[in-house]
């Protein structure tokens, strides 16, 4: 299979190269109208088919690697490093993306799959899709080049073939790891598509803004994947790493957050271009930056420039990424300068208090957040370059800067929908802002009365202060969004005589994009409430003899014993803890510690009891070698489940926004498509 896989990758590379070159030549000939022997349309059609064929070839290569994992083919270095015979089947499948070469292959395959769908649907706008297809072929060519030369997943092992492999990294042997990386990659890779459309539209001087409508679904689907990928990663970190938190500002986390921030900014500001013909240059650079940030993130973490707890494979491919980024940036700048006059805005922002301004602020804040995070990510590299010593930025620094920015974004999420386009009168502000402001202040006072105060233990507590602001803002934003639903639904109820539920349903169907967006905003509010809960986290740690008790919040944990188990893949030790609440036994928790046989590495498996108010999170840290007694660490993390519920709401909102509205959407009709005889 190694020979077949390598050959399939070389074939895919050749097909991508043909797609790139023949497609570019064809588009040039069509643009200049030069007479040629072969019709340029015919040449473009073969280029498109080469792109489709490239997908089949990459699929064959991915199949070859998965086959090799399942066949325990230890003649391949990649299989030796990332699998072993006793590895369960579902983790064997995830070995495909557990290492550098495999994840690059997954990247290339997903890109080919996106390109495949794009090329099959090209009749929607033949010319724009041809440009986008060629640009995607260029990106695909780069990844296939990596896979064929410096990072081949089919490289053979030197020397004798071992009987068994080293096994999958224990951190990755967790069910979510089977879906988290593909989702994250679907998001990362997916931004190549709106990038390709935007660059293509700019190259061909696409008249009007219809290309935005055409690419909207691509951008939203990509954003949804990236959102789910980022939050699944958080959940994985929470459930596996055993430190009680879900976000540690690790470089890999930061790398996934940066394109999410710029992608979110793009999703908002592109509406301004579509509706008002504004912010054209800004949008182009937002999507360019988003794509470049996906490359930068990969270069930072996978290229070994910064270290991370989950940069599972590092190699010198960082320099390849750097070169590719320089090329992409040069192409973007060149095209932008060449077509600058095409990006003239049709109108300007007229008032600071308008929906346009809210969008603009939202964008500026998202970009500020991205730049701050980028600074933190690059600081170790810059400090090493300037001072000769690598200085890393800790989570406290990120929190100190990012939390106020996040709260300001939350504020804008509530204010934006209430403002009209162009300008706002005082009367309009009074009409729309009274209720949300009342909700905000009422919640703030209620929180203070309930003891959520910024002063704690005789001093100012920054975390509690921000939590108080977050709860108050959340109430204001929820009121603002719900008032939008209530207002809209009441008109429909008046017009149709239906009840409030049916009217709300009709309202959402009428404008899925807007109300889907509001549902996403509600999801964000719920997530922020979950984040705010971290200001009240508690923890306790104890070495526990049999029947010793550990008190945390309303719970009392009693050690009732320990047990051991063995599987072909790992040996494990469980601590058995009975959990009491108000003096009554409620349930048992069994945190464990595993030792994986193939790699000899140990891994804690956290036990989590989740209720809406908080999570009881228990870690078995092993036994004290001196006393032989288990060491138990327990955390009481308030409102964590709100984060996961909020993400589900965000996903639901995006799915709603992806549906076609009943009254508004007319399918983007491109200039007439003709069937031309070859």
């Amino acid at each position, binding site marked *: 299979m190694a020979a077949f896989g390598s050959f399939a990758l070389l074939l895919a590379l050749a097909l991508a190269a043909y797609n790139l070159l023949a497609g570019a030549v064809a588009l040039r000939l069509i643009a200049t109208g030069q007479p040629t022997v072969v019709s340029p349309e015919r040449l473009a*059609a073969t280029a498109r088919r080469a792109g489709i064929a490239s997908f089949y070839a990459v699929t064959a290569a991915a199949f070859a690697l998965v086959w090799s994992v399942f066949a325990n083919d230890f003649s391949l270095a990649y299989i030796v490093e990332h699998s072993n015979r006793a590895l369960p089947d579902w983790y064997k499948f995830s070995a495909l993306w557990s290492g550098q070469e495999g994840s690059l292959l997954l990247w290339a395959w997903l890109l080919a799959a996106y390109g495949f769908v794009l090329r099959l649907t090209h009749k929607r706008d033949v010319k724009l899709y041809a440009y986008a297809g060629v640009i995607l072929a260029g990106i695909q060519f780069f990844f296939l080049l990596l896979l064929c030369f410096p990072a081949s997943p089919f490289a053979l092992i030197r020397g004798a073939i071992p009987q068994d492999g080293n096994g999958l990294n224990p951190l990755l042997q967790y069910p979510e790891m089977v879906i988290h990386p593909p989702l994250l990659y679907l998001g990362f890779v997916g931004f190549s598509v709106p990038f390709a459309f935007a660059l293509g539209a700019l190259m061909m001087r696409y008249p009007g803004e219809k290309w935005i409508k055409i690419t909207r679904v691509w951008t939203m689907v990509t954003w949804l994947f990236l959102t789910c990928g980022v939050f699944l990663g958080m959940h994985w970190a929470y459930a596996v790493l055993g430190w009680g938190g879900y976000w540690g500002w690790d470089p890999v986390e930061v790398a996934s957050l940066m394109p999410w921030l710029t992608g979110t900014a793009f999703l908002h500001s592109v509406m301004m271009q579509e509706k008002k013909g504004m912010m054209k240059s800004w949008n182009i650079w937002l999507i360019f930056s988003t794509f470049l940030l996906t490359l930068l993130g990969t270069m930072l973490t996978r290229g070994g420039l910064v270290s991370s707890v989950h940069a599972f494979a590092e190699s010198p491919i960082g320099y390849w990424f750097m070169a590719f980024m320089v090329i992409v940036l040069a192409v973007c700048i060149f095209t932008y300068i060449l077509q600058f006059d095409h990006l003239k805005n049709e109108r300007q922002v007229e008032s600071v208090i308008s929906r346009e301004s809210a969008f603009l602020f939202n964008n500026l804040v998202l970009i500020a957040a991205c730049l701050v995070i980028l600074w933190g990510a690059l600081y170790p590299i810059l400090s090493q370059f300037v001072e000769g010593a690598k200085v890393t930025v800790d989570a406290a620094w990120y929190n100190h800067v990012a939390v106020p920015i996040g709260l300001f974004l939350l504020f804008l999420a509530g204010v934006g929908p209430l403002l009209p386009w162009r300008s706002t009168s005082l009367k309009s502000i009074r009409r729309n802002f009274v209720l949300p402001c009342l909700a905000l202040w009422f919640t703030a006072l209620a929180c203070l009365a309930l003891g959520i105060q910024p002063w704690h233990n005789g001093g100012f507590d920054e975390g509690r202060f921000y939590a108080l602001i977050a709860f108050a803002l959340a109430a204001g934003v929820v009121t603002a969004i719900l008032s939008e639903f209530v207002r809209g639904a009441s008109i429909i109820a008046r017009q149709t005589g239906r009840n409030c539920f049916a009217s709300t349903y009709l309202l959402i169907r009428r404008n899925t994009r807007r109300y889907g967006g509001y549902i996403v905003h509600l999801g964000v509010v719920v997530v922020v409430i979950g984040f705010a809960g971290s200001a009240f986290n508690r923890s306790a740690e104890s070495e526990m003899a049999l029947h010793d008790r550990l008190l945390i919040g309303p719970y009392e944990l009693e050690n009732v014993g320990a047990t051991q188990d063995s599987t072909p893949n790992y040996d494990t030790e469980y601590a058995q803890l009975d959990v009491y609440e108000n003096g009554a036994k409620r349930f048992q928790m069994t945190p464990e510690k595993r030792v994986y046989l193939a790699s000899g590495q140990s891994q804690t498996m956290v036990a989590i009891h989740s209720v809406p108010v908080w999570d009881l999170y228990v870690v078995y840290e092993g036994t004290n070698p001196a006393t032989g007694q288990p060491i138990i660490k327990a955390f009481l993390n308030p409102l964590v489940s709100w984060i996961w519920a909020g993400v589900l709401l965000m996903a639901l909102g995006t799915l709603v926004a992806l549906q076609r509205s009943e009254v508004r959407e007319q399918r983007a009709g491109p200039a007439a498509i003709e069937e031309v005889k070859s």
Partner: protein
Amino acid sequence: MTESLGLVGGALLALALVAYTFWPEKFFAAQRSKSRLDYLLERQQQLDENLRDLNFEFSAGKYPPEDFAAQKAPLENESAKLLAEIELLQKAQG
């Protein structure tokens, strides 16, 4: 799978994909350039959408009448100009 079998498989795959790429098609899609009229019709569609949104928000009691009138007037003016040009171009096209 032996190396030679893998290579045979690879060669067959290559043959199939090259044939797929270069197989002469009877027809292929082409697209005429977007005309000014196409662009204006698109723009008109967007303006109609903006006006519909504005009317709906006004009915929902979001804006006082004077704000509504101030926002509606420029949209209607732009729409009127577009419609006039569209009509002119459609007449010219016969």
